[in-house]
């Protein structure tokens, strides 16, 4: 059976679809968070070298992975929106940015918290933390550009171009920062480096990764629903919605 994908790329259909999917994502994410945190903080064994403080790994690494992944997803949606002129893709890109920035911020925060017991200082200019900081700048640039343009179509297209340029630059920035770090003999101990030797550690990590991912999906879908309503406020189908008439 062929599925008509284009049907779901219309904001009016996607609005309903997103409303149905988002609560499921949120619910499953909550369960996975609970399980992941329990296994990570209680069940998983204490690390031989880092003691208990390594457990922040179960938050730091999943958020760091998702912060980079979400930027690429955002740039992907932006590119589709720019090339095929589909409104929904541009709205998805806009909806992804704040969540991506949030994960970047959490990764930075937890990185700093991890640095204190490990190096005795809150901030170390290591390659991963520095890249995360630059990624946060890229997210902020995307949101700042989008919000400073009044015309939504120009805002979508300009921000999309910036996201694409940024995503081409992300690997270059990442490797240049690593290069800089290796030349200056930064800390030999990198943030986020943990010897995973136990099955419960692996389980906790994967649970947390999926929990974060589903959380991102739920929040982005809810946010894109608001954006759709705002952009399409003058259309017939919005006026006929139950929640609008009530």
């Amino acid at each position, binding site marked *: 059976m062929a599925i008509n994908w284009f049907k779901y790329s219309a904001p009016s259909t996607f609005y309903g679809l997103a409303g149905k999917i988002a609560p499921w994502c949120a619910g499953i994410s909550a369960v996975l968070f609970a399980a992941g945190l329990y296994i990570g903080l209680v069940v998983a064994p204490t690390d031989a070298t880092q003691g208990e403080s390594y457990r922040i790994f179960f938050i730091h690494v999943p958020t760091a992975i998702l912060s980079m992944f979400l930027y690429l997803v955002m740039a992907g949606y932006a590119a589709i929106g720019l090339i095929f002129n589909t409104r929904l893709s541009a709205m998805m890109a806009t909806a992804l940015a704040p969540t991506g920035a949030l994960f970047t911020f959490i990764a930075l925060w937890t990185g700093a918290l991890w640095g204190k017991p490990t190096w005795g200082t809150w901030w170390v200019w290591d390659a991963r933390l520095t890249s995360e900081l*630059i990624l946060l*700048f*890229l997210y*902020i*640039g995307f949101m*700042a*550009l989008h919000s*400073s*343009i009044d*015309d939504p*179509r*120009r805002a979508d*297209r*300009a921000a999309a*171009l*910036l996201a694409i*340029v*940024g995503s081409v*630059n992300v690997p*270059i*920035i990442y490797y*240049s*920062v690593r*290069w*800089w770090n290796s*030349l200056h003999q930064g800390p030999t101990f990198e943030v986020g480096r943990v010897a995973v030797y136990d099955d419960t550690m692996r389980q906790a990590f994967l649970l947390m990764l999926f929990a974060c991912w589903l959380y991102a999906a739920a929040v982005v879908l809810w946010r894109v629903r608001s954006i759709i309503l705002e952009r399409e406020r003058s259309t017939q189908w919005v006026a006929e919605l139950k929640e609008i008439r009530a």
Partner: protein
Amino acid sequence: MNPQDKMSLSDSLMLVIRRDWLLAMRRRADVLTTLVFFVMVVSLFPLSMEPDPNVLRKIAPGVVWVAALLASMLSLGRLFSADHADGTLEQMMLAPQPLALLVFGKIVAHWMLSGLPLVLLAPVLGLQFGVPTEGLWVLVAGLLLGTPMLSAIGAIGAALTLGLRGGGVLVSLLVLPLCIPVLIFGAGAVDAVLAAKSAAPNLALLGAALVVSLAAAPWVAAQALRISME
């Protein structure tokens, strides 16, 4: 009109460069402002700390590069905004030549007027910080490869923020993170020489990045102009 009166692509490129040069020469103060800003930012660093010659020598490459980055951000506002305000940009977009070519011309002119003077002045500032001769050469070589990239990447930001409120601050916010690799390789080259290592890998990476950005940035900036002019 005779067919020989039509202009070739290189004629158009030269026309744009000569035009921007001519306009800048009629307003030399703008060029000088950028240059003075560059010198001033560099001079602020020794004043903000104890001027220990060893420390100054160590921070010199980074300070000069950061100042160059800021100075080129300052001049980005001029890249398209005057042409946008008086309608010249509309006419450029209606030129029978590819828009990317004309944008490339504007990038070259912008570099000659804002990047090249910094490169020529940098050795003097390096001497103030006590950088040895071999370090000065590498500093100049790095800036020569790096500053055109700042103009090229900056053109994308300037095109995206065309005509926006607070465009000047916004353009720095968009462009500076993208310029970090240039900073790392450029300042890294001088650091390497000062640490008695070879600057070649850094300079080679800068050169490669220059080729890529000069090939891609005019095209991207042209797309950004089309978006901004709608």
